[in-house]
């Protein structure tokens, strides 16, 4: 790919980034354009991925090159999904949906039982095993106890079918504090995560402000600022004229 196309690409990337950020100041046609482009480009990207990674290698090639007719079964099931758009035959889509839902539900059960139930209960009880206690690590025992107590108290909080009073109320209140600690930690992590993304975008904009890209970031930013100033005076004009009148 030529150097010109790469520089043009830099301008496109910087422009679209700044257009999307311009919404933070005010809604404007540039933001709306970038937003709709994102919608189309996102769908286009997934479409080409599904085309070249699924339909061609897993349906077209086996059917035409290897004569494997069994791929027609999932193909037909998949096509029934599309009948959703035609009310008279939309009931056909149930075949596709029930296949997906049945398969998905069948998979979810062993996943959650082994990973989210058994392993977590096991992990909570592990510090209290005789072999662990014999190691004599007091901190492990203390931390394990805190986790176990917190875990049980949080479960008490989620027992909505039992009235929260007396001992259950006390336990559920302790559970709430553990939940607050978890949410606080999650908030801290969320803040970090989002800032990392934002930093990444600014890093790219800084890259495209280099002389190599003919100061793309600066030029587009300046143009947008000029647009907002002109737009401000344009939309303010009728009020000023009214006042003058």
């Amino acid at each position, binding site marked *: 790919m030529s150097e010109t196309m790469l520089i043009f690409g830099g301008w496109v990337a910087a422009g679209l980034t700044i257009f999307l950020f311009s919404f933070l100041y005010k809604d404007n046609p540039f933001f709306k354009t970038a937003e709709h482009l994102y919608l189309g480009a996102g769908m286009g990207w997934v479409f080409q991925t599904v085309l070249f*990674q699924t339909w061609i290698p897993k349906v077209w090639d086996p059917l035409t090159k290897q004569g494997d007719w069994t791929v027609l079964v999932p193909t037909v099931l998949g096509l029934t999904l599309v009948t959703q758009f035609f009310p008279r035959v939309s009931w056909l889509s149930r075949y596709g949906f029930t296949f997906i839902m049945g398969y998905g539900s069948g998979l979810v059960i062993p996943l959650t039982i082994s990973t989210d139930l058994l392993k*977590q209960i096991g992990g909570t009880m592990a510090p209290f095993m005789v072999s662990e206690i014999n190691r004599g690590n007091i901190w492990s025992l203390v931390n394990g106890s805190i986790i176990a107590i917190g875990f049980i108290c949080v479960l008490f909080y989620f027992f909505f079918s039992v009235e929260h009073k007396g001992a259950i109320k006390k336990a559920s209140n302790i559970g709430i504090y553990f939940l607050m600690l978890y949410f606080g930690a999650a908030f801290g992590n969320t*803040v*970090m*995560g989002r*800032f990392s*993304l934002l930093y990444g975008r600014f*890093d790219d904009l800084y890259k495209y402000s280099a002389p190599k890209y003919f100061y793309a970031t600066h030029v587009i930013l300046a143009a947008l600022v000029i647009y907002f100033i002109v737009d401000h005076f344009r939309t303010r004009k009728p009020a000023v004229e009214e006042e003058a009148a």
Partner: protein
Amino acid sequence: MKNTIEKILKIDRRLIFLALTLLLVFPIVRPLGLPNKNIGNEVKALHDKIEGLPAGSFLMLSLDYDPATRPELHPQAVAVIKHAFRKDLRIMILTLNAGATGLIDEIGERIPKDIAPSKKYGTDYVILPYQPNPVAVMTQLGMDMFQIYDKDRDGADLKSMPVMKGIRNVKDMQLGMCITGTAMLDYWVAYTADKFKMPFAGGTTAVSQIGYAPYLQTGQLKGLMGGMKGAADYELLIGEKEKGTAGLDALSLAHIMVIALIVVANIMMLWLKYL
């Protein structure tokens, strides 16, 4: 006084946006170079796990992130690949996320250039094509991976490649790792690590990191990198500072800004209450 405080509390949020922008852009233009002292235990555990693998061991690396989470996760991937190549491990890169293919191509471009110029494609590492059905892939990898991956991303035959010698499924691999911004790591743990007893590690965004603390505790994950800090910690451990470390300075300022804003707002609220 009361009016001033109320005005400050109701300040135009665009000024806050501008302040945040300036705080994040400043370290990019003028790096602060703040020292990163405390390395997370889970990052150290991951580093030690890879450090302890003998040369020729097989690392399965699933890069399941897209451009949206790139600033946090891409530096993690690069750091792990650098370390793995330094330890002469064989690497198999795959993805179950359509958006990751472009980012993997970038890594593929960089390996012969600056990451590990001495390593040869097909002999030391291989890149597999995207597959859309994660659970199908994970289950198949535990049984016979060539049923689902018969060719690499360029269409070359996979089984005959020197890098795949002695590998039929995950039981022949020494370590699996998933770097993702979605819940894909949960699936890897359930369908591969737990089911086939494969040693597994992860790299996640800072947002998701806390959700994996239980897995670290139970040993389902041998190590974990969380967000840009995780990448920066790992870069420090392997002695190669890159994008992860650079971003930490900007994050420092931004974090302090959020804390300061919350504290100031609450102090003003209390002040108003007792004024």
